[in-house]
């Protein structure tokens, strides 16, 4: 029987994420997978800006906190001089798909040998719920008070789809964290991505569909229903690229 215990990679403090927020679950999944791989001492978390930056308080392992959107660039510098470390960036949607779009696409295109974990909750949580690049059409935010209008704000960016068009990335997958199966699949996906990195295979990308009860102005359970009926139909979970799949 495996022992179920708190990962040493999670700081010994209660999470200050809002009640029902899935960031805490995502962080825990990552920590547990690193533990399973025996990489706790070798892992390095590149912490981005937004609610994800709160991991400065909750992450118990080594970390480097970096500028908004620049985690894939910083991780490039880290990995090029320290290729043996297990390096991952944890980025939100504003960080990765708006201000950091150049950095994520370019790092993916270079095939940098690290893993990016992308928490997509379709809003800028930390700054109070503005429109994100992944905000759904019609979704109300503090900067789209009548709902996102594609005539002036375009369409939600599908990052897995974009990144999977590139030659270099090795594993690109999206999971929704609002169901036990989604969580279980995500755990397997993160583990696969980290293992591929440890094997020196190249760039791996995991998108996690998450929520924001506070800024969506919903109860946690309502966010799960919203995800089922709105988020998941647009951002379809699945493996978008897996160069290990048939060989």
């Amino acid at each position, binding site marked *: 029987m495996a022992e179920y215990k708190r990962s040493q990679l999670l700081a010994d403090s209660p999470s200050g994420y809002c009640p029902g927020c899935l960031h805490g679950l995502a962080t825990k999944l990552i920590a547990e997978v690193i533990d399973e791989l025996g990489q706790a*001492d*070798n*892992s*390095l978390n*590149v*912490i981005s800006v937004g609610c994800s*930056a709160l991991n*400065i308080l909750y992450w*118990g*392992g*080594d*970390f*480097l*906190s*970096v*500028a908004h959107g*620049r985690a894939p*660039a*910083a*991780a*490039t*510098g*880290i*990995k*090029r*001089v*320290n290729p043996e*470390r297990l390096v991952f960036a944890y980025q939100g949607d504003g960080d990765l798909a708006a201000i950091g779009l*150049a*950095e994520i*696409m*370019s790092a993916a295109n*270079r095939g940098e040998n690290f893993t990016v974990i992308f928490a997509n909750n379709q809003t800028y949580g930390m700054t109070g719920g503005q429109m994100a690049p992944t905000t759904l059409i019609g979704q109300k935010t503090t900067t789209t008070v009548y709902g996102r209008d594609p005539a002036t704000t375009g369409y939600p960016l599908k990052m897995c789809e974009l990144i999977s068009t590139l030659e270099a990335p090795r594993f690109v997958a999206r999971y929704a964290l609002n169901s036990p199966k989604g969580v279980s699949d995500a755990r397997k996906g993160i583990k696969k991505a980290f293992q591929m990195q440890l094997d020196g295979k190249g760039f791996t990308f995991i998108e996690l569909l998450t929520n924001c009860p506070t800024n969506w102005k919903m109860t946690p359970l309502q966010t799960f229903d919203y995800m089922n009926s709105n988020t998941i139909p647009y951002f379809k979970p699945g493996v978008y690229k897996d160069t290990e799949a048939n060989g």
Partner: protein
Amino acid sequence: MGDKRFMKGNEAIAEAAVRGGCRFFAGYPITPQNEIPEYLSWRLPEVGGAFVQGESEVASINMVYGAAAMGTRALTSSSGPGISLKAEGISYLAAAALPAVIVNISRGGPGLGSIQPAQSDYLQATKALGHGGFHAMVLAPNSAQEAADLVYDAWEYAERDRNPVLVLMDGCLGNIMEEVELPPMKELHDEDLPEWSLTRRNGRDWQGNITPIYTELILEGLNAMAGEMYKAWEEDDVKVEEFMLDDAEYVVVAYGIASRVSKEAILKLREEGVKIGMIRPITLFPFPKKSIRNLDFTKVKGIFDIEMTVPAQMREDIELQVMDRCPIYEYGRSGGCLLDDDGVYDAIAEIVKGEDA
């Protein structure tokens, strides 16, 4: 025996960086500094280092941030427009207390400006290299040799202070070819890596973390510590060349290319009996305040601020030391137009001979 080569200023910087222990470079093409990334793209792999051509200056400075966090001596180079883009990352380096070296081979500005040489980035370099009120040490060589010497030791300052160091040199000096005696290769070992670096978790029982964000009381304390560091630089790290000052009635203050051109004009004026000398700041920050403040103003009749930019940017730093004890005149060219010794001579002679007439 020394290792003498005939090389461009930019190449001298690149080779001296490698010999000074640099093992990571990231940068984005921009004139007039392209020889630096071009040289390092093949040279760094020869010594086990890494070169990345970044997708932007913004990405490049953040790659440097990542490599620096691992204790690796990291470098980026650019010119004015690109340094503006790196400003965010340089501020983060200062906040996270990470050492790195940034080279600005400067050109005409503002904006896209011109690709020709200019000294138009003095204020950016010395006053606000990014947001948040920090300083980097600013080194301003006036030859390929001095560029090599200063870059070679730049990481010693950066690591001592855990703070970025800026090398500011104009595109003219970056591209002229001169004889350079190269310093020997510094041998760096893993055990020399800084204690704070994030390289080795194995065997270390404490959490390694580096962050540019703090709670307010800690940040206030760090701000105060930075202030103390800048004061210490003024005491310990000022580099300045004083030229023919003993009997000087007129003093040129000039750095970099402007000091080279001014020296020619000064020698010609000396031949004509004009008692003139020069103060050449080699560190622009810390600024050589004492060299100017302690001039004998019973003798000195005028100061000439000669810069390859218009209006002069160093003037306020000079004024603060002169304290109205004599007039300050300025002369310069700008926009990529080069200073020449005749122009500098004429500008000085007009004042000096006019006063003596």
